[in-house]
C-alpha cells in the first residue's frame, strides 16, 4: 500500500459502509454524554456531525479513536476488502491500524521538527527513521499530488501558517493509510480562503475513496460541503438528514430542539437599570477574546441571557465585568455611576457578584478549606478579621451556616475544597456570591458540567436573586437554559452582541451560527 492508489479496493465499492457505530453509550458520573448512538459512514462520503457544545460530539469521536472506552456498544470498521470487523475499543493504536485518522482542533505537532519528521513521528521506529525518510517522502509526495494537499515538507512546523499545519496533520493521517478521516472543527482556526482550500482538498480526497466525518458549528459550511448531516443534542442522536434536503432553518431547529421546557418563572416588571454598557469595545488578541461596540442594559428584577457558541466574545464580556480586563473604549455604569477602575475589588465594591466560567481555575482555591474559600472575596470585612488577624470562630460559624443554607455537602468546612464534587463546588460559589446580595450577578456557564439536580438548584437560586431585585447577566451555551431563565436574550457572534427580538429557537439558532435573522 505504499505506492499507487491508496484505496484501490474501496474505490470499486462505491456507497458501501466503512464504519458503523452500534449503540454506543458513555456516562461521566451522572451525565450521560452519549446515549445509544447508532451511526454509519458510507465510503467516499462527507458526513457532518452537528451539535451545540456539550452535545456529545467530542465524546463520540474520542470513543471512535480509542481515547475513551464506551460503557456499552460496539464499533465495526471495514477492511480493504470491505468486510466489517469489530474494532478493539479503547486502543488508539487499534483505531490507527483500522485506518481511522483524526485531526484535532488543536494540532498535535512538534513545532521544532520539520513537516516530514512530524508526519513520520509515531509511525516509524526511531532507529530506522533516517533510512525511511526517502521512501516516506515519495509516498507523501504521491498523496499530495492526488489530493492537492500541499505543505512544505522540509520547513519546521513553527514557521508554517495555521492552514499549512492543518494540511500536515491531514497528510499525517493519510500517510498512516487512513480510510476514515475525522476533522474536529477544522475551519475554526482557518481564514475563509484557507477554509475553501480545505474543502477542495476534502472533495479530492473523497473522490479517492476516503470517508470524512466533519464536526462543525457552521451551518453554511455543513450545507455546502457535506452529503449527510447528523445532529446530536444532549448526548442523543436527534436527527439525520441528507444535505440536499436540508436548509439552515431545518438544521438549526434540529440542533436546538423544538420543545420549550416549562418555565417556573414568574413575570416581573423590570426595575431600575443596574448595569449599563455603552459601545463597549475590547480588542483581544483574536476574535475569540474581543467584543465590538456592545450596548447592553440590565435592569433590576431582570435576567438577560447571552446565547452563542463558545469562543465568540463571551469571555471578553465576562472578563471585563469580573474586573479582569480594562475595556479599550466605551463605558460601564453600575447603578447609574460610571466605573473608572476595572479591577476585581472595584467590581466587588460596585456590587457585582461573579460566578466564573471555569470554577476550578477562577472560582476556588482547591487546596484551601471550605471556610476560607467562603470568605476569600471579603477579607477586609470586620466580621472576618480584626487588625489583620482572622476571626477563626466567626469564619467557622459563617461557613457552617452558609453550607447548611446552600446545601454544600463535603467532608467538612475545614477540608480542602478540591475534595468536593463539581456540584457542591458550584453551590459554594453561589453561597459566596449570593451572600453579599449583589446588585448584579454575572453567571458565566453556571450549570456547565453539573448534573440535573445541581443545575436545577443553580437556576432556582438565580430566579430567587431576580425576585429579590438583582440584575443577572447569564452567559450560556445551553440555549435551553437561556430560554428558560432569561427575560431578554442577546446573541453573541464574532464579538458582536445582537438582541433577539423574540425567543424563537430557530431564529436564535440561526443568529448563533452567524446567519442574519429572517
Amino acid at each position: 500500500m505504499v505506492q499507487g492508489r491508496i484505496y484501490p479496493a474501496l474505490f470499486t465499492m462505491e456507497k458501501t459502509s466503512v464504519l458503523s457505530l452500534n449503540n454506543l453509550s458513555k456516562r461521566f458520573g451522572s451525565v450521560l454524554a452519549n446515549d445509544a448512538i447508532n451511526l454509519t459512514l458510507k465510503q467516499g462520503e462527507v458526513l457532518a456531525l452537528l451539535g451545540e457544545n456539550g452535545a456529545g460530539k467530542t465524546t463520540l469521536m474520542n470513543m471512535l479513536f480509542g481515547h475513551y472506552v464506551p460503557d456499552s456498544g460496539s464499533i465495526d470498521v471495514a477492511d480493504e476488502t470491505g468486510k466489517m470487523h469489530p474494532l478493539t475499543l479503547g486502543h488508539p493504536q487499534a483505531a490507527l491500524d483500522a485506518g481511522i485518522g483524526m485531526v484535532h482542533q488543536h494540532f498535535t505537532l512538534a513545532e521544532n521538527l520539520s513537516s516530514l519528521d512530524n508526519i513520520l513521528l509515531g509511525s516509524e521506529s526511531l532507529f530506522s527513521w533516517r533510512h525511511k525518510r526517502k521512501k516516506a517522502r515519495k509516498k507523501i509526495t504521491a498523496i499530495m499530488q492526488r489530493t492537492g494537499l500541499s505543505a512544505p515538507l522540509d520547513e519546521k512546523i513553527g514557521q508554517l501558517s495555521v492552514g499549512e499545519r492543518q494540511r500536515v496533520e491531514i497528510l499525517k493521517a493519510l500517510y498512516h493509510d487512513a480510510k476514515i478521516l475525522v476533522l474536529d472543527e477544522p475551519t475554526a482556526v482557518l481564514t475563509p480562503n484557507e477554509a475553501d482550500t480545505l474543502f477542495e482538498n476534502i472533495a479530492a480526497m473523497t473522490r479517492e475513496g476516503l470517508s470524512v466525518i466533519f464536526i462543525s458549528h457552521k451551518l453554511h459550511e455543513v450545507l455546502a460541503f457535506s452529503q449527510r448531516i447528523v445532529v446530536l443534542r444532549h448526548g442523543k442522536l436527534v436527527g439525520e438528514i441528507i444535505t440536499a434536503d436540508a436548509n439552515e432553518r431545518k438544521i438549526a431547529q434540529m440542533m436546538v430542539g423544538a420543545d420549550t421546557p416549562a418555565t417556573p418563572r414568574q413575570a416581573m416588571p423590570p426595575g431600575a437599570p443596574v448595569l449599563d454598557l455603552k459601545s463597549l469595545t475590547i480588542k483581544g488578541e483574536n476574535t475569540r477574546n474581543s467584543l465590538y461596540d456592545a450596548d447592553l442594559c440590565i435592569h433590576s428584577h431582570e435576567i438577560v441571557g447571552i446565547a452563542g457558541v463558545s469562543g465568540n466574545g463571551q469571555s471578553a464580556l465576562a472578563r471585563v465585568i469580573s474586573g479582569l480586563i480594562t475595556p479599550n473604549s466605551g463605558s460601564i455604569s453600575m447603578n447609574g455611576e460610571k466605573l473608572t477602575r476595572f479591577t476585581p475589588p472595584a467590581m466587588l465594591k460596585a456590587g457585582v457578584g461573579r460566578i466564573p466560567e471555569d470554577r476550578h481555575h477562577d472560582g476556588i482555591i482547591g487546596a484551601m478549606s471550605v471556610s476560607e474559600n467562603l470568605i476569600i472575596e471579603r477579607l477586609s470585612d470586620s466580621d472576618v478579621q480584626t487588625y489583620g488577624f482572622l476571626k477563626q470562630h466567626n469564619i467557622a460559624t459563617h461557613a457552617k451556616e452558609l453550607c447548611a443554607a446552600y446545601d454544600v455537602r463535603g467532608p467538612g468546612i475545614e477540608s480542602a475544597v478540591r475534595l468536593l464534587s463539581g456540584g457542591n463546588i458550584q453551590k459554594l460559589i453561589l453561597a459566596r456570591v449570593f451572600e453579599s446580595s449583589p446588585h448584579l450577578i454575572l453567571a458565566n456557564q453556571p450549570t456547565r458540567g453539573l448534573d440535573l439536580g445541581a443545575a436545577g438548584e443553580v437556576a432556582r437560586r438565580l430566579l430567587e436573586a431576580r425576585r429579590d431585585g438583582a440584575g443577572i447577566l447569564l452567559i450560556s451555551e445551553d440555549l435551553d437554559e437561556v430560554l428558560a431563565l432569561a427575560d431578554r436574550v442577546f446573541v453573541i457572534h464574532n464579538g458582536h452582541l445582537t438582541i433577539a427580538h423574540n425567543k424563537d429557537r430557530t431564529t436564535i439558532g440561526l443568529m448563533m451560527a452567524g446567519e442574519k435573522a429572517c
Partner: protein
Amino acid sequence: MLRIEPRESPSRWWTLGVPIASALLALLLAAIPLAFAGANIFEGYRQMAKGIFGSTFAFTEMLTRATPLIFTGLAVTLAFRAKLWNIGAEGQLYLGAMAAVIVGTGMIDAPPFILIPIILLAGASAGAVGMAGPAYLKTRFGADEVVTTLLLNFIILIFLQMMLEGPLKDPMGMGWPQSKPIVDDGILPQLLPRMRVHAGLIIALLAAVIAHIMLSKTVWGLKLRAVGENAAAALHAGIKVKRTIIGAAIVSGALAGLAGVGEVTGLRGYLTTDLSPGYGYTGIVVAMLAGLSPIGVVISALFIASIFVGADSMSRAMGVSSYLADLVVAMSLICVLVGGFVARYRITRTGKGDV
C-alpha cells in the same frame, strides 16, 4: 505497565510520616558510602550520635548550627508557599551580614538593647531589599525568579569580596579580606557560659512561631497561601496578587538576612566570605523536609544540623570524609521528594498493553 493517578486525599499519616521516614531512610542509606569508606558502620553511627548528644558542648554546637538553618528554612518556606521560588537565601544572608557589619562596627554608639535591634533591623532590611528586587522583576516583567535569585547569589558574593577588599576591610586585619569586628555592644549574648550557642537561636524560634501565626492566623497569610495555591482564583477574588508576592518576598528576604546577622553578631564577630557553608541552599532542603510548615522547619533544621555536626565528629573520630554529611542531606531531600510523590499519587499495576 504502571498507572499513576492522584490520591483523592493524601492521608494525614502520609503527610506526617513521609518526612520522618525519609529522614530515617537517608540515615540508613548513609551506611552505604560509610561501608565504601571502609569504616565500621555501627561505630560510625555511634560516633555520629556521640557528636550530637555526647556532651553539652556537642549538643549546643548542633543548636548553633541549626540557628541559621531555621532562618533560611523559614525564608524559603514563606516564599515557596506563595509559589515564589527564592533560591537566593544565600545571597540575602550575606546582604544581611553586610548590613550588620556596616551599622555594627562603630557607626552607631549605643547600649546593647538599642544597638542590637538596630543591627537586626538593618540586616533584615538588607535581605528584604535583596529579594524584593527579583520579586519586582517577576511581577513587572515576568522575569523568572529562579534565575534572578540564583544568579544574584554570585553577584552578591563577588560584591562582598569587593567590599571586604575595599571599604569594609579591617585595617587591623593583617591584610586578610575580613571586616572590622562587631563592637561589644552589638554582640548577641551567649545563652550558656563557655558555649557558642547564642541568642540568635531564641530569635529564630520566635521567628518560626511568628511565621506560623502569620501564615495560618492572619489575612496576610491567607492571601499568601491563596496566591500560592491558585493565583488566577486569588486574582478573581480580589486579592492583589502582585502586592502579595512582593510582600512574601520582603518577609522571605528579611528572614534570610537575619540568618546572616545571627552568624556575624552571634558567632563570628566579623564578616568573611566563608561565613556561610551554603546555609541559604540548605535552607531549601530544610523547608522541603518540613513540608513548608514553619514549625516543621525548626524540627528539620535540628535534624539537618545534627547530620552536619554528627558527620563532622564521625569524620574526625574515624577518618572518613566529612562530605558524608552533604551526602546524607542530599539523600534526605531526594527521599522527601520521592516520598511526597508517593503520598500524593497512587501507583497501580495494570495489565500489559493498557494505557
